[in-house]
């Protein structure tokens, strides 16, 4: 049996949970889900649709808001009685954090960010593929353990409802949680303004070292405004203090999913590329026709971005008759 931790925030399901459930079904065995905290009780029917035949619903005073220690204690207490072959979670910040805490408690291996590919679970020692370098490199790895702990890399598995939906039987339980877990419970929450974000914008105008300065981004801002998009940047730009890290695209920044990414003066290092490659269409503007960003792009304009970017903005305006 495989146990899947369903991630949610005060009862709002993290969509990646469906990816984890879909992945778990590939093992061709019984799939159970676990939700932490009473606010998640309503989720059971949705989990059945993705193949979970039971939903273990952990109820506890320390499980109202998220906390890594309380979550890990709850999982460990269910694992002890249920003895699943594997415990899986989402490859999100929280999913990876909680499984690391479970692994530390059990002194068991934990394989982070497994993709759906080339899975071999036929022997005691499972062989899996996981991502490294934020997805720029794959690793074949084995895991030997009584309960295999792993997270499913984000967007590595297409979430699909089960061909035969199950009725997920709710199974409430009260886990044993060490009172010290209260130390790492959220003290305060502030909902940030939700507007266009780098991750969800349909157009991203990215700038790299080639932009040359903080002020050099003004024409990129103007183009982004014209297209209802946002400005992104490379790590060279953040390291120079030209822009805030919230604008950084890449392995240690944000992964974008834009319809169009205009990459201006960016060389296209692999760590930048992993953040950019989710864009449906990439247009590179670079003085160097051999730059990686150019050779990997869909379209390119060769030349100085300081001339080309304002020319694009002007052309849009003139086409709109402004």
């Amino acid at each position: 049996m495989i146990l899947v931790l369903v991630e949610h925030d005060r009862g709002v399901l993290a969509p990646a949970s469906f990816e984890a459930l879909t992945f778990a079904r590939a093992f061709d065995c019984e799939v159970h889900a676990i939700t932490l905290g009473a606010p998640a009780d309503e989720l059971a029917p949705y989990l059945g649709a993705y193949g979970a035949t039971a939903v273990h619903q952990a109820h506890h005073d320390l499980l109202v808001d998220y906390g890594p220690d309380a979550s890990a204690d709850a999982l460990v207490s269910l694992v002890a009685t249920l003895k699943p072959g594997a415990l899986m979670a989402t490859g999100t910040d929280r999913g990876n954090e909680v499984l690391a805490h479970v692994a530390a408690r059990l002194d068991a291996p934990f394989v982070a960010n497994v993709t759906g590919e080339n899975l071999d679970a036929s022997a005691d020692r499972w062989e899996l593929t996981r991502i490294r370098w934020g997805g720029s490199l794959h690793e074949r790895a084995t895991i030997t353990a009584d309960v295999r702990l792993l997270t499913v890399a984000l967007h590595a598995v297409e979430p699909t409802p089960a061909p035969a939906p199950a009725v997920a039987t709710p199974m409430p339980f009260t886990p044993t949680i060490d009172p010290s877990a209260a130390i790492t419970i959220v003290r305060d929450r502030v909902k940030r303004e939700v507007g266009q974000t780098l991750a969800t914008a349909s157009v991203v105008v990215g700038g790299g070292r080639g932009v040359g300065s903080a002020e050099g981004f003004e024409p990129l801002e103007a183009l982004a405004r014209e297209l209802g998009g946002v400005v992104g940047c490379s790590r060279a730009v953040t390291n120079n203090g030209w822009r805030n890290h919230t604008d950084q695209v890449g392995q240690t920044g944000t992964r974008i999913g834009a319809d169009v990414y205009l990459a201006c003066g960016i060389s296209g290092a692999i760590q930048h590329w992993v953040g950019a490659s989710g864009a449906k269409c990439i247009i590179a503007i670079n003085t160097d026709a051999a730059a990686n960003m150019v050779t990997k792009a869909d379209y390119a304009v060769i030349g100085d971005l300081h001339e080309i970017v304002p020319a694009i903005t002007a052309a849009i305006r003139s086409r709109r008759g402004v």
Partner: protein
Amino acid sequence: MRVLVCIKRVPAPGARINVTEDGLAVDTTNLGFTTSPHEECALEAGLQLVEEHGGSATALTLGPPEAEEQLRYAASLGVTDAALIPTDGTDWDPQRTARAIGHVIAELEAVGGEFDVILFGNESADSGGFQVGVRVARALGRPMITGAKGLTMDGTTARVQREIDGTQEVYELRLPAIIGVKEGINLPRYPTMKGRLASRKLGVQIHEAVGEPGGQRMVQLVSPPEQESRLVVLGAGPAAADKVVDLLAERGLL
């Protein structure tokens, strides 16, 4: 305040990551090395704590003897003590890494006293296991929060901010505590000339690696298949702007 920062030496690849013939390592023939980015920010955070509250910062790394380079870089920024746990340079699994690091932290504390704060990166750039810091925290019995994008300290408590899907969460941890730092929490400083000179004099303590391998083993590294080039060059210079606008219009973005 005694601060420890755990940093990892990683290759700094450019356009692509090549794998050695045996498939067990990144081919670093023409590559430089660097400190994993989240850990550069952990170093900066540690140095800022020392500047604000006094005390000293120590850097620790487990890796090939060449990782001394990253410790000296840390010293050029302001770290005054350094510990190296030398390995044969092969990839160590996260359990083994955590056991060895936990063991050496206990040794360092037995001599110099408890670290009030131990900083890790959120995840290492190369292996991205998301776990070494959490395992060490458990072994030492200290509270741990990862993903820190903000950190303030009032002597007995660390206030940690992080962001999850547009919500900012705040945690308060009693010291001694362990914190995993994310890039963006600060802008790491560059070495000064004085720092560079000081770093040459840094005494690096060598500690033996103690700890059994864990249950995860690397079999092989594989480069994901490269997509075929699909490039269309629209032109050169501002004259090509119209073609870009055509493309944007085709996609309904005007």
